[in-house]
């Protein structure tokens, strides 16, 4: 089973959003997941462009993912 399951906190490692925290919302197929974060817009993302963290957050209906991540982790591992 993949580590990229709903609720997994990741860091993007490619593109302009590299170094920013995000959360896996849903698994699309074996290569792609949908992610969202405080500085990452809600989008499809290749799991090769993600680095998983050991943390997971619980996804319930109406949870503000951006706020949760921002409080717990911050915007990203790299500032700016």
């Amino acid at each position, binding site marked *: 089973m993949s580590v990229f399951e709903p609720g997994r906190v990741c860091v993007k*490692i*490619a*593109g*302009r959003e*590299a*170094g920013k925290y995000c959360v896996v919302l849903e698994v699309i197929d074996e290569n792609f997941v949908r992610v969202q974060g405080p500085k990452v817009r809600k989008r499809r993302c290749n799991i090769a462009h993600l680095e998983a963290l*050991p943390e997971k957050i619980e996804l319930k209906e109406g949870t503000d993912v951006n706020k949760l991540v921002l409080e717990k982790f911050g915007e990203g591992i790299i500032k*700016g």
Partner: protein
Amino acid sequence: MRRALRTRKVKKVVKRTPGNRLTVHFRRAKVDYAHCGNCGRKMVRARLKPSEIRKLPKVQRRPERPFPELCAKCMREKIREMIRAVVRI
């Protein structure tokens, strides 16, 4: 072209003049590729002179991601290292 600048890097072109003479003309040396600051690999960027790069908008001068001086591979490795430094399992 000035004599001191006629190095082997400069391309020579043989031209026939209107007076039916063969002369050697010198082309300006091409600008080198941008290289990664870590591994030295060539990076994808326009091979323009610094004076021409200055005229471009900022987004066309360098990549919009963090560590624009590194190639994408080295940047990923660097971010992974930063994650490992923070996360202790």
